[in-house]
């Protein structure tokens, strides 16, 4: 399980907090790896491309909740920024700036998790 701790530490996520909340390190590792299958980032990108504000809001809101639950603080923070930019918005344009940071953190998180999975 050391590798999951490393993955968390590498991306600046809260390993200790999350493992206490989520019934231990073993369980946390299982949950965290499930994140590799989570589709909310893909949904967010698709909705942004299509200019679908409501769809984008739903997707990033879900991503925010999941990353908060898993203790991915690095991902949670930019997800909050994008969520708030899209809340009650008429277009997706307000979220364009925020989404760069989110993409970066998402990529870092996914690659760290893939490493841990090997």
């Amino acid at each position: 399980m050391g590798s999951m701790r490393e993955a968390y530490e590498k991306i600046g996520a809260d390993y200790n907090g999350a493992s206490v909340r989520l019934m231990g390190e073993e369980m946390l590792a299982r949950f965290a790896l499930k994140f590799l299958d989570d589709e909310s980032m893909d949904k967010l990108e698709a909705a942004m491309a299509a200019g679908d504000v409501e769809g984008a809001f739903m997707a990033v809101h879900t991503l925010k909740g999941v990353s908060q639950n898993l203790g991915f603080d690095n991902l949670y923070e930019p997800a909050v920024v994008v969520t708030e930019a899209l809340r009650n918005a008429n277009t997706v344009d307000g979220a364009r700036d925020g989404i760069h940071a989110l993409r970066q953190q998402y990529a870092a998180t996914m690659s760290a998790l893939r490493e841990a999975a090997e």
Partner: protein
Amino acid sequence: MLNNHEANLTDEEAAAEVARVAKIYPVVRLMSADQVKSERNCLLAGDRCPCLRQSSLEALATSDEISERLLNDGVEYRARVRSLTVEGEPHVLLMVRPIDEQEVAEEDLVYTDVLTSVRNRRYYEEKLRSARMNAGVAMIDLDDFRVFNDTCGRHAGDLALGAVAAAIRGGIRSTDELVRLGCDKFVAVMPNIPSDDFARRLRHVSDAVHATIVPGHEHVSLTACVGGVRINGETVDEGVNRAVQLLSHAKAKPGTVVTDSDAIEIFQSEKPSVLIVDDSEMNRIILNEMLKDEYRVLEADNGRTALDLVDRYGDELSLVLLDIIMPGMNGFEVLGELSRRTVADSLPVIMISSEDSDDVVLRAYELGASDYINRPFNARVVRRRVSNTIRLYAKQRRLTSLLSQQYNERVKNSRMLIDIMAGVMELRNGESGLHVTHIEKLTELLLGCLVHRSDKFPLDNEQRSTIAMASALHDIGKMSIDDAILNKPGRLTSEEFEIMKTHTTLGADMLFELGHQHAGNSLLEYAYQIARWHHERWDGKGYPDGLKGDEIPIAAQVVSVADVYDALTSVRVYKDAIPHQEAIQMILDGKCGEFNPLLLDCLLEVQDRIVETLARPADVVAFPTI
């Protein structure tokens, strides 16, 4: 007497000691440690009191003197075990004598619970708690006993405890110990009982408690949860502690019996169901993982599916965990839909979201959510909130049913008294035995229609059924009318009719006088209005007061219509029964005086139901008189 256990006795000294104690104890044996360990029948009653072997070993190990009570063939014995050293070898001296009756009686008194006649707490503390044995130990805990005590009274509570203790005693063996450990908690200790017999007896105990009838409270059914564990050489207290733990699981459902051998399956099959509604699979997985050990978990990824599942599973669901932000139908909309369903009152909903602004939380509560869980999830908090909420609702359901049981019992009692009075009146009036019942049904039908048709009389269910009940006393004044007039065949003279008319005021006065202790009671007030004014007419041409229109209280107006209809359609000493249709027409035509037009509309509207309800043939002659 040799008190020093360390002293090394010679064989002769040991023989002398045996002879000395044999004067007091009819059975005495001196045994070496090896004999205790190896000799199969070293004990006084062979294998039937292995506890004495245990005690001997204990005495050898600790050099303490041990004293205990044995039961053999229905006779109780006092046994003492003392360790000694004889010729350098460790020995035990066993001494046994029957306990005489006086000793038993005295001991019994000190150790008996006054209320239930089973063993008391002191007995447990002094005699049982630290005893090591092979036994089944069961904790028997009455469900919601405090509520029973509070609603039925202390006295009933005491009666219930006595009855329950007797029921438990009947379900266990006569050699088993039964202790009342706390207010509504009993401990049964069953030495050397085989596993299957233990489980079977505990179910008997649970059934017996359920079948217990508390004198004077026959409608209340008591239940107890039973947790049973087996101890093998551990102390009774250790067993009790484990049984208590087991019981804390069983308490989810009243009347449950769990033993350590079957605990796992029972929990599997009786797990409460929890529905998780969240659009994110990730979040559902996490919650499912947290809850699946203790609950059957159902999942829905959107609001529509969630509502379908609620409809499908209904009462089987114990709780819903509901996400707020979801595509399609959001959590608030799901809550709104849920509140329109009948299960809503008994199905708690816990909202989940990271939208933790006060407005969102408050809105959730306003829409009927029971609780609120914030992200990020904490497994322990989630589990605790879920289990607390489920318990609370389960308790509330049990309380509601208990209260409604008692309420219905009260209503049944007043109903019965009124039926008796009405029956007495009918006997005297020589009317059809059904008159009072008919009036009541008609009154109920007319009132139901009236509140639908007009908002002038906002009478709720409770008030309507009270009026219907009060209608039974409408002719109570006839009790004081001379029999010759009351039951005169043929027409009354105008003088006689004047006397007959006084039954209204006589009845009202009776109710006023006899009921003065109950001033303000709505049943009595309605009964008064009905008795006095059920012969008043809309145009003021009725009696006794000549009230007009809505001066006549609505309760009396309704009963007057009902009374006229039933009188027309019944046989009387002075007339035949008139068929339904004709009777309705007569009333509409004002042949029996004027009535409130609104009530006449109601009469027309409910006429089919009158025929149905009263089983009145639509146009043939009805019931003969009794």
